[in-house]
């Protein structure tokens, strides 16, 4: 789930009518100083970080003057929280707090609805005091249960005006959460002040990853919770995923030491199968460089792009692919995608791919045959080969190989160039090149035979048989055609699908 910072959350609350302290966002000591001056000198400075207990790590300070705000800001901007450097601070009005409350909204999977928790007992340590908390059932469209809310408020020893204000704040918090499709919202504390206001003094909000596309206003770059700032490669992968929704593609770097000598590129398929397969390879003593999942009947192009992203990581000693082992999808599409990626980088680290499932025989044959001349061993396995067996086999191959990759870039054949005279057809995801000059009778027949009806024989040379726009959804079929021609010893087709961010330099 994508997380919002305190100041972003507070802006969302404010736009739904919940009062929040006056605040400014500062990313330099001077900005913090200026902000404190605008607030009259006294202010609270807080780091913007995804952690509880900011106070304990020196991330909250009460300052008496703009200069003090500057000094504290300078110190705080050097803090690291986990893998994240602190880059932003909130400088806000100091509140005359009278009473503290706790208010949250989360998703109750058993009720299939949101649930709100409200406590009148002050917020800190709330997790340990379940009995002090009122649980409010919430309807997904109409909000918290009014009767229960009123009953809870009636018992809290509040002034009449406060009761009405807090009831309103609870309803507004629900509206705020609903408006951005929050996965969770926590206002800890919600406060009453000595001058009679009800305000959100803090705010933590997360947004449903699958709804982020409907909320461009939130400026969320990668709709995913990572334990580190997104790396360049994760950005590249995320954009591939966003551009092609045929099946799932999920990529994340995993923590490891830079000089780890047992680093593996991991390519899973399916959430549950991936988790199980990760165990099989880590139990052989390897470290996973990344997590990756292509599943849900992905296109060959998506599997190809995923493999390229995985292979661009330096320091790999091998490539391990495995899913549930009994995939419902036709596995040969994955085999074509993997074969294309392995050929383009001239793979020299061993790969073990468990392709069990529908059409596994054909899938394994495509992969191993297409890759038989590569410097590395590429082996494919089926559903009756257990993950443990594949893990052990992988270790044997890595031990025999001794090669460590430096991060592969792709190789493009010479005919994939406008001056070569090759046939070039553009489609939505790239271009396909056919080296017509090199096409003898056999090559032409191969292109037509494996081209899924997209090409015809025109005077002994391959030509496009369909309107150009038909190619748009046919990238998988084109990749299949390329690999089949390669297997038959006539590598006359090249599907050119540069990955933005990965293959940019070669174009310059």
């Amino acid at each position, binding site marked *: *789930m994508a997380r919002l910072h305190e100041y972003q959350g507070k802006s969302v609350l404010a736009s739904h009518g919940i009062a929040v302290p006056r605040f400014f966002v500062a990313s330099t000591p001077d900005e913090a100083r200026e902000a404190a001056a605008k607030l009259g000198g006294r202010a609270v400075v807080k780091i913007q970080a995804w952690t509880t207990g900011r106070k304990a790590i020196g991330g909250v300070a009460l300052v008496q003057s703009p200069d003090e705000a500057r000094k504290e800001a300078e110190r705080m901007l050097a803090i690291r929280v986990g893998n994240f450097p602190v880059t932003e601070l909130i400088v806000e009005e100091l509140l005359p707090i009278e009473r503290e409350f706790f208010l949250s909204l989360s*998703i109750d*999977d*058993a009720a*299939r*609805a*949101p649930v709100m928790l409200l406590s009148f007992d002050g917020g800190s340590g709330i*997790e340990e005091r379940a009995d002090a908390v009122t649980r409010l059932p919430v*309807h*997904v*469209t109409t909000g918290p249960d009014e009767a229960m809310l009123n009953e809870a408020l009636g018992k809290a020893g509040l002034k009449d005006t406060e009761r009405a204000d807090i009831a309103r704040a609870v309803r507004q918090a629900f509206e705020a959460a*609903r408006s951005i*499709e929050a*996965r*969770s919202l926590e206002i800890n504390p919600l406060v009453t002040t000595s001058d009679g206001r009800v305000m959100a003094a803090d705010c933590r909000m997360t947004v*449903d*990853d*699958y*709804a982020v*596309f*409907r909320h461009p206003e939130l400026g969320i770059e990668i709709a*995913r*919770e990572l*334990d580190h700032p997104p790396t360049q490669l994760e950005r590249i992968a995320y954009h591939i995923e966003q551009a092609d*929704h045929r099946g*799932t593609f*999920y990529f*994340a770097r995993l923590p490891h030491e830079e000089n780890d000598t047992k680093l593996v590129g991991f390519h*899973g*398929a*399916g*959430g*549950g*199968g*991936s*988790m*199980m397969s*990760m*165990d099989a390879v*880590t139990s052989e003593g390897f470290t996973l460089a990344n*997590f990756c*999942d292509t*599943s*849900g*009947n992905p296109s060959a192009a998506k599997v190809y792009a995923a493999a390229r992203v995985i292979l661009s990581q330096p320091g790999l000693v091998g490539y391990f692919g495995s*899913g*549930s*082992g*009994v*995939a*419902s999808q*036709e596995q040969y599409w994955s085999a074509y995608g993997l074969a294309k990626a392995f050929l383009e980088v001239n793979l020299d680290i061993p790969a073990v791919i468990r392709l069990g*499932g*529908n*059409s596994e025989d054909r899938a394994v044959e495509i992969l191993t045959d297409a890759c038989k001349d590569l410097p590395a061993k590429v082996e494919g396995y089926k*559903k009756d080969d*257990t*993950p*443990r067996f594949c893990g052990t086999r992988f270790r044997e191959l890595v031990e025999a190989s001794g090669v460590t990759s430096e991060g592969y870039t792709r190789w493009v054949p010479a005919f994939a160039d406008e001056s070569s005279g090759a046939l070039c057809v553009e489609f939505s995801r790239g271009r396909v090149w056919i080296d017509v000059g090199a096409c003898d009778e056999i090559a032409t027949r191969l292109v037509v035979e494996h081209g899924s009806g997209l090409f015809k024989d025109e005077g002994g040379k391959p030509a496009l048989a369909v309107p150009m726009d038909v190619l748009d*959804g046919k990238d998988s079929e084109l990749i299949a055609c390329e690999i089949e021609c390669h297997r038959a010893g006539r590598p006359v087709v090249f599907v050119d699908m540069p990955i933005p961010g990965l293959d940019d330099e070669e174009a310059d």
Partner: protein
Amino acid sequence: MAILIDSTTRVLVQGITGREGQARTRLMKEFGTHVVAGCTPGKGGEEVLGVPVFDSCAEAMQQAGPIDASVVFVPARFVKGAAIEAIQAGVKLVMLVPDRVPLWDAMEIAACAKQHGAEFIGPNTLGVLSPGHGVLGMIGGKAESARSWFPKGPVGIISRSGGMTSSCGYYIGRRGIGMSTLCHVGGDSVLGLRFPDVALKFEADPETRAIAVFGEIGGSQEEDLARLIREGRVTKPVCAYIGGAAAKEGTRFSHAGAIIEGNTGTHACKVRALREAGATVVTSFGELPDAVEAMMKRLVEP
């Protein structure tokens, strides 16, 4: 008997004219599912693989009904509309196959289903398959594979992972043990039918004699199932594997539902709850078929 789908279930496919809709309709029909109608707005009057297509669910219901179940193959952002349309037209079981359905959409579908007394499975489900009867969704892929992988028999399978639903079925089937129904509840955090709901259906199904479970970290489905066992509402033996032992709090892989939030939904929590309730929990997936085999032997010779 079986649960959720049997030989009498009449099925509507929403999004039947799309790429996935067409491909999956073919597979469902080949497996023996009675696909009696399809629905794609604006394509009423067409036919897909001999199945009549209607503009709306209400129309399909009227002209090709009765309809017992609908399978939804539309892009994620249109799932809410499609599901609510089916439920309002009177369909009592809706399968939501697409991945990436927004959470608040899933909750709205749940509210609508509750109001109309309907059930749904998913989102992000591979489907439900009853050997010898039919399949809703895409478990097994090819009909001939599905037939050879999943023999008919006494074990009910419930899983939070699509691929692992098939794996459980296949590896259990290799031991000569068949299954009544395989049900993938979906990988998301808000789901229609959850483990306890499906387990109660297996409990009521005379053909099912034992239940195999592929659970995952996150959420409370496994704990809720454990409670039913403890309360004596699920009395058939349960054998489970819980994936994600190595995951840290807050790390998410690719199932939206497989995330540990705070101190709930941890691997240890789930294993303990199920074991204390009397279920068998194996620690590696490879042990599941052995455990199921042993469980079946105990049933025969207690």
